[in-house]
């Protein structure tokens, strides 16, 4: 992802009369990517195994759990932000770790936001894998791990979609990162917890619509680039299975 940031940073001079401190913009892009990529990576590590386990086992309450996951996709980000703030606040249960107004707290809230869509969409993808493929993998003497890997391979487009949905949710939400992160930039114009979304909100509030629009364009471009990269990886990385 550093490459993406660098590419966009290098794109700065494209704006001929760049009227803003480019360091301000690049540091905001960096914070946005840093927080969202880490949050989505952790979410993926948790979500995909969870989805596979839930998808291929039968237990009481499975239907209920699926409902909970699907409901979580629509969790309002401000509520998540509020709950995370209460948790990390100095009066809260995680108060001693000094997390309030930090990137770590932002990663926590984005993790909570990104996990339900990634789990839900992965679940749908893996349950959609043809039963015959599974049975074939078993019949060929595969262990449970082999079968799981086969399923992941088969469902890779669905899983990629899930990760993208989670990433899209994380990088474009403004409610929770504003509450737990505080939208902080240093006096030297370097962002500490300011993301593209919270910066857009601030710049629009302050009447600097040109800068707000520029940041908005960068945000959209960023989501497009990440989508393209992930889809590309899905195409080349999967071998000849499809």
């Amino acid at each position, binding site marked *: 992802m550093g490459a993406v940031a660098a590419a966009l940073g290098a794109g700065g001079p494209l704006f001929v009369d760049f009227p803003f401190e480019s360091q301000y913009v690049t540091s905001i892009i960096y914070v946005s990517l840093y927080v969202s990529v880490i949050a989505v990576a952790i979410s993926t590590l948790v979500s995909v195994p969870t989805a596979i386990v839930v998808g291929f086992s039968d237990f009481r309450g499975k239907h209920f759990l699926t409902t909970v996951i699907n409901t979580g996709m629509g969790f309002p980000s401000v509520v998540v932000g509020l709950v995370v703030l209460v948790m990390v606040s*100095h009066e809260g249960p995680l108060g001693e770790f000094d997390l309030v*107004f930090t990137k770590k707290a932002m990663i926590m809230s984005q993790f909570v936001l990104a996990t339900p869509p990634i789990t839900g969409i992965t679940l749908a993808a893996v349950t959609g894998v043809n039963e015959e493929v599974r049975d074939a993998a078993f019949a060929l003497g595969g262990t449970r791990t082999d079968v799981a890997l086969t399923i992941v391979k088969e469902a890779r487009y669905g899983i990629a979609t899930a990760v993208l949905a989670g990433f899209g949710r994380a990088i474009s939400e403004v409610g929770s990162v504003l509450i737990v992160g505080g*939208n*902080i930039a*240093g*006096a*030297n114009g370097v962002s500490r917890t300011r993301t593209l979304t919270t910066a857009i909100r*601030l710049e629009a*509030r302050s*009447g600097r619509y040109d800068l707000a629009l520029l940041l908005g364009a960068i945000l959209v471009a960023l989501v497009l680039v990440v989508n393209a990269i992930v889809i590309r990886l899905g195409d080349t990385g999967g071998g000849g299975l499809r």
Partner: protein
Amino acid sequence: MPIQRRDLLAALGTGATAGLAGCSGVLGGGDGGDGPEVDGETLTLTTTTSTYDTGLLDALNEPFQEHYGVTVDAVSQGTGAALESAENGNADLVMVHARSLEDEFMREGYGVNRRDLMFNDFVVVGPSDDPAGIEGMDSATEAFNAIAESESAFVSRGDNSGTHTKELVVWEAAGTEPGGSWYQEIGSGMGDALNTADEQGAYTLSDRGTYISMQSNLSLTILVQGPIEDGPELLANPYGVIAVNPAVHDHVNYDLAMAYIGYITGPEGQQVIEDYRMNDKQLFFPRALSEDPDFQQYVPEGWSADDDS
């Protein structure tokens, strides 16, 4: 707390004097090796949207950060939210502008060592065709009543900020309970309120600093002036700075918070405030330096040692 014109002139005079004093400020001294060992520490300051959005805080923080080698994390919220963050121990100090809320904060023990920092004033802004006919009124309450009677659109911050608190004080003084479809609470910052009022041709109460900083994007004009331009004292807007009480929240960076308060209320910080310009206009007027002691700045307003409170 009304700002007397005499005080105002005194403060202006102080600022000018400090200006002449030139570059012999506290932070100007070289970097003697025995400075305080605060290198790399972080100071968390919760403040209002007006100090932040106007860019004043960046101008104030840069010399402080350079001198001490620390980072100042400024979180801009409304005054109510800024104090709430500090009550929960999430900030080391607050810079706000609603004396009644500051006093409550101190009475409850969350804040210590309050100082008057600076002031500007509020102005009533609105569309230039002025449907309520308030232009040039020298009473904020009369203007508010005229707006209410003509049911002209009015945008209220509605966010428990210093400006919102002041707006409610003016309504109360006017003896009018605002309500109805003409009165819109937007629950958002000053910039948002100005933009909304601008879009809708509505009136709103704004601090002069934020209004000036956004003036070029707005068609709103000042219809009722604050005390800086000889308007009513009711529209005075004093800012205070308070450290969070380390006896209540023992993890706060109290030493650094006091160093910061020392800096911004000292000659160097006050000079930065005095010199800060936007669109060639001064947004804030320093108020901390005075030869005549004002003991009321340290305690809740009206407090005296004879009280039981």
